[in-house]
């Protein structure tokens, strides 16, 4: 019967229509389709400011929705994306589970905190910072505050009593304000994440030859994806697989534009760390009386 269909006088027209229909159907089948089902929220910690953070992670959210087949939106939260200290706090208080850590910069899925001074300041060693003015990053930043506070305590320097004073910049973009504060002489010493030094030097915002690294903390995990304790394990597995399998050339469509997921998120990839890799931060938090181990 099918053959007779094509033997009619209009067989060439029918054949053309069929040939046109097949790729059209395939095209439609391959089109992005919104996943169905309930909405799950991903809580993204602010890095510099809220608007920038939301824009940065919108493509990644979309990508995870497509790969995991779940409707993800930013908000509170089946999944979280925070720094490693907040991951520990949420894990301690809310049973958050480890999904994967961001990879960015020299150290991959790890970073470190440094204490730096301007080369012309005369400050050469950690001992020299006594009685000086110091600027920290955000108080809950593991490599902008925690690691450096711990470094100083380990060297026998109490930031509460042995410095002239310390401050934390107000408002957004605190990380950059730390380095500019040192650069323009408002402070003598800065608690700068090693990653920030790397990125700002690459952007030409600072010259590494202009400052001296007084001390650097041990390596600690970088920003981390976590999941709530009651997230469906199958969804968790799909999300983890999607993150670990992300490649630099993977793209999603956002607002009519095709964007690279990793590049938009300012991340070079994701790595599956072990929970024991975060013990170093737990030890730092205990030593510095920081959450989740703070005592009053």
């Amino acid at each position, binding site marked *: 019967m099918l053959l007779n269909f094509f033997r009619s006088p209009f067989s060439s027209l029918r054949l053309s229509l069929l040939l046109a229909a097949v790729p059209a159907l395939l095209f439609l089948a391959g089109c992005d389709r919104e996943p169905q089902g309930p909405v799950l929220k991903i809580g993204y910690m602010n890095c510099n400011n809220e608007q920038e953070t939301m824009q940065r992670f919108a493509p990644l959210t979309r990508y995870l929705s497509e790969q995991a087949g779940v409707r993800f939106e930013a908000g509170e939260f089946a999944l979280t994306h925070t720094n490693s200290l907040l991951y520990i706090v949420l894990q301690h208080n809310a049973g958050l589970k480890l999904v994967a850590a961001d990879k960015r910069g*020299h*150290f*991959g*899925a*790890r970073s*470190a905190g*440094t204490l730096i001074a301007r080369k012309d300041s005369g400050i050469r060693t950690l001992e020299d910072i006594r009685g000086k003015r110091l600027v920290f990053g955000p108080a809950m930043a593991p490599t902008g505050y925690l690691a450096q506070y711990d470094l100083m305590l380990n060297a026998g320097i109490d930031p509460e009593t042995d410095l002239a004073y310390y401050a934390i910049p107000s408002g957004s973009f605190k990380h950059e304000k730390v380095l500019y504060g040192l650069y323009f002489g408002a402070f003598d010493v800065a608690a700068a994440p*090693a990653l920030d*030094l*790397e990125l700002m*030097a*690459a952007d030409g915002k600072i010259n*590494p030859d202009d400052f*001296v*690294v007084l001390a*650097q903390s*041990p*390596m600690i995990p970088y920003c981390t994806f976590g999941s709530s304790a009651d997230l469906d394990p199958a969804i968790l597995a799909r999300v983890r697989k999607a993150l*670990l399998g992300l490649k630099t050339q993977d793209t999603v469509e956002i607002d009519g534009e095709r964007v690279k997921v990793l590049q938009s998120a300012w991340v070079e990839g994701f*790595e*599956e*760390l*072990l929970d024991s890799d975060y013990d170093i931060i737990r030890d730092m938090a205990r030593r510095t009386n920081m959450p989740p181990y703070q005592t009053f």
Partner: protein
Amino acid sequence: MTFDRFDRFHGLLLLLVAGGLVLLLAVAESGGGRSAAGVDKAMEQDLDYQARVAFVQKLYGPVEDLRRDGQLQQALLKLDELERRYPGEAHGFILRGEILSRMGVLAEAVASYVAALRLNGDYVDARSPLSRQTEIRQLVDDGLRILGGQARSHPENVSLAAAVKNVHYLQSRLAGGCE
């Protein structure tokens, strides 16, 4: 088979040309044949290589100085600066691997060494002026012990499996073979 005048003429010509060739080579050899030939590829290649090694060592000298002084973070930043001018240079990867290894970032250090060796296998040759055979051997031992141990305890962890695969690559390059 019978040889006619045609065969004898061409046979004689063959002997004459062969003799001329032998004479030419013999005269050239006694009169400094290699320079007369005007080409000594092996020597040229060797000179190019020595020049390259000297250039690379000079270029990355500041990084090595910072590393020796223990200023590892500064060394990494200086390395970044050089990489922007000479992207994909194997020596940069080797130095990065050395620094990261000292900083305790084992998986990333191994990955840097792998990137270096894939570009230039001289770093694994004992006789090369660029040899890092001892450091690579130590890295392999550490990698198998630490990363390998973690991977065995967490067989489902794909990141650890990828890191161990890199260690095995270094191990294979150390073992030698045609490469």
